[in-house]
C-alpha cells in the first residue's frame, strides 16, 4: 500500500510537469495540442543525445544515478524542446490560427505528433535506451516503502518548479499577461497586450517543462520513442480533471492520475493500467466537466 502511494506520487509528479505545459497551451492558445506529449519524448531524447555526446566526464553525484552531465543535458534539452515548439508554432500553428476553426489546429497537431515521434524513432531507433546504467540502492523510508534517491530528486524538483511557476504567474508582468490572455483573450487584446509575445513564452515554458518531465520519466523508466504517446491520455486526463488553464489544477490532476494508476494495479491486472486515466476522464466529463477547479476556459458550450 505505502509503496503504491510512493510510486503514485512519483508518476504523478512527472505527469504533473507535462500537464502544466498542456494546460497552459490549452488555456492560452485554446486548442488541445495532441503533439504536446511528443515534446516530452523529444526533450527526453535530446537530453540523451547530450549525455551521449558529453560522456560521463564526471561520475554520478552520490547517491543519485546521474551527475552534472545530465543536469546540463536537461537544460540543453529544455532549450531544444522550446526551439522545436516555437518552430512548430511558426511553421504550422501560426498560419492555421489566422483564419480557420480551432479544430484545424487540433488535426494539424495529429500530424505534428506523428512527425516528431517518427523523427525520434528514425534518429534514435526503436530500442530502449538509458541515461545511465548505474544501479541505485533504494532507501527504506517507512516499513514497506522504499524510494530511490532519483525519485526523491524528482519529487523535490517538481515542488521547486511548481512553486516557482506560481510566483511567476502571480508576481511578474508576463505571468499576469498569460493569466489575462487565458481568462479573456478579447479583453486582453483590447488592452494592448502583445499576444504574440505571450504565445511565444507559453510555448517556451510549456515545452521546457515537457522536456524536464521527459528526462525525469526517462530516469524512472527506460527511454522509448513511444513514451510521449503513452503519456498523452494521462496528460489530458490530468488537465481536464484540474480544469483547463489551471496550473495548480494540472498539478493536482497529475497527482490524482498517478496515484490512481498506481493503486489500480493492486485491483485490476497491470495490463489495463493505461485505461485508468480514461475511466477517470470519462467520470469527470460525466460529473463535473469543468474539472475540480473550474478552469479559465470552461469545457461546457
Amino acid at each position, binding site marked *: 500500500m505505502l509503496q503504491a502511494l510512493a510510486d503514485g506520487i512519483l508518476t504523478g509528479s512527472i505527469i504533473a510537469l507535462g500537464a502544466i505545459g498542456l494546460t497552459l497551451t*490549452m488555456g492560452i492558445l485554446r*486548442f*488541445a495540442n*495532441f503533439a504536446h506529449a511528443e515534446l516530452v519524448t523529444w526533450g527526453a531524447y535530446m537530453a540523451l543525445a547530450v549525455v551521449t555526446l558529453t560522456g560521463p566526464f564526471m561520475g554520478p553525484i552520490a547517491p543519485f544515478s546521474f551527475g552534472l552531465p545530465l543536469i546540463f543535458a536537461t537544460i540543453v534539452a529544455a532549450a531544444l524542446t522550446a526551439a522545436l515548439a516555437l518552430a512548430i508554432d511558426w511553421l*504550422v500553428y501560426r*498560419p*492555421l490560427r489566422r483564419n*480557420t476553426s480551432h*479544430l*484545424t489546429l*487540433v*488535426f*494539424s497537431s*495529429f*500530424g*505534428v*505528433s*506523428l*512527425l516528431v*515521434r*517518427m*523523427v525520434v*524513432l*528514425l534518429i534514435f*531507433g*526503436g530500442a530502449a535506451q538509458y541515461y545511465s546504467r548505474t544501479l541505485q540502492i533504494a532507501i527504506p523510508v517507512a516499513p514497506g516503502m522504499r524510494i530511490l534517491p532519483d525519485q526523491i530528486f524528482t519529487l523535490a524538483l517538481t515542488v521547486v518548479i511548481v512553486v516557482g511557476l506560481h510566483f511567476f504567474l502571480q508576481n511578474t508582468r508576463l505571468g499576469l499577461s498569460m493569466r489575462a490572455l487565458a481568462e479573456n483573450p478579447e479583453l486582453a487584446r483590447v488592452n494592448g497586450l502583445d499576444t504574440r509575445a505571450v504565445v511565444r513564452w507559453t510555448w517556451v515554458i510549456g515545452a521546457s517543462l515537457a522536456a524536464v518531465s521527459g528526462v525525469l520519466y526517462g530516469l524512472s523508466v527506460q527511454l522509448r520513442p513511444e513514451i510521449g*504517446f503513452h503519456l*498523452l*491520455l494521462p496528460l*489530458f*486526463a490530468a488537465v*481536464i480533471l484540474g480544469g483547463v488553464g489551471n496550473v495548480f489544477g494540472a498539478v493536482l490532476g497529475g497527482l490524482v492520475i498517478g496515484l490512481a494508476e498506481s493503486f489500480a494495479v493492486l485491483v485490476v*491486472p497491470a*495490463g*489495463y493500467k*493505461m*485505461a485508468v*486515466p*480514461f*475511466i477517470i*476522464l*470519462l467520470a469527470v*466529463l*460525466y460529473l463535473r*466537466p469543468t474539472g475540480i477547479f473550474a478552469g479559465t476556459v470552461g*469545457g*461546457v*458550450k
Partner: protein
Amino acid sequence: MSGFAAYLVFFLIVALTYSIVTMGLNLQWGYTGLFNAGVVGFFAIGAYGTAVLVGPDRAHLIGGFGLPFPLGVAGGMALSALAAFIVGLATLRLREEYLAIATFGIAISIQLVALNFEALTGGAQGLAGLPRPLFSFFGSPGAYNLFYLLVVVAMAAIVYVALEVAVRSPWGRVLKAVREDETAARSLGKNPAAIRLQVFVLGCTLMGLAGGLYVGFIGYVSPLDFLPILTFQIWAMLIVGGSGNNRGAIVGAVGVWALWAMSGLAISRLLPVTYQSQGGAIQVILIGLLIVLTLLFRPRGLIGETEAVSRHTR
C-alpha cells in the same frame, strides 16, 4: 490472374473497406463537426464483435457462436453503436476537443482489452481460423477475392447512396446547421444534442460495419490490425479527399491507401534489411506530412465540400 491483378483486387478490397470508415467519419466530422479521434476503436469493436460471433467454438475461449456472417457483422455494428452511445452521452455536450480526447481514450482502452482479455479476444495472438463467408463456393482464392471485392464494392455503394440520400434530406440539412451555428439550429426548434448523438452513433456503426467486412476478408483478428496509426490514416484520407463530401472520402481513402502501400513497397525494396524497422517510420512520417501540408496548402482537400446555397437566394 496475374500477380498485379491479384494485388490490385486485394488492394481495392482493403481501400474500399477503409472508404466505408472514412464515410462514417465524414458523416461525423464533415457534415456535423464531431471530432472522433478514436476511429480505430470503433473499427476494432466491429471486427472483434464479428469475430467472436461468427467464430468456431473453442474450448478455452468465450464466444465462438458460429453465427452466419451477416448476423455476426450486425452484432459487431451493434456493439460499436453501443460504445459510441456511452462515450457520446458523456462528451457530446462539451467542446469538440473533449469528444476527441474521450474517443482517443476509448480506442486505447479497446486495444488494451484486445491485448489483455485473452479469454475473449485471444490476446496478442488474436483469433485465427475464422470462417470466410461463402469461401467453399469458390474454387480458388483468386476467384474468392474477386467475389469479396464485389461484396465490398456493393457495401460501399450502399453506404454512399444511403449517406447521400440522408445528407440531402431535411435531417441532413440539420447536421450542417448544427455544425455551423448551433444557436440558430436550436432557435429553429432542432435539438442539437440529440442530432449529435444520432450522428455519432450512426458514424461509429459504419466503422463497425467496415470492421466486420475486414474480418470476413482476412479471416483472423489480432491487436496489430488496430494500431492507433489507423485513426491517423483515416483522418488523412478524409482531409486529403475533402471533408463534407462523400466522394472525397472515397477518393481520399483509395489515394492515401495507395500512397501507404506504395511507400511501403518502395521502402522494403530500397532499404537494406537492417534499416527496415526505421522504414516504417518513414511511412508514418509521410502520413503526418500529408495531414499538415494538406491543412496548410489545400484545406478543402482534393474534392472539397460544395457550397450549399438556398435556391431562394439565387
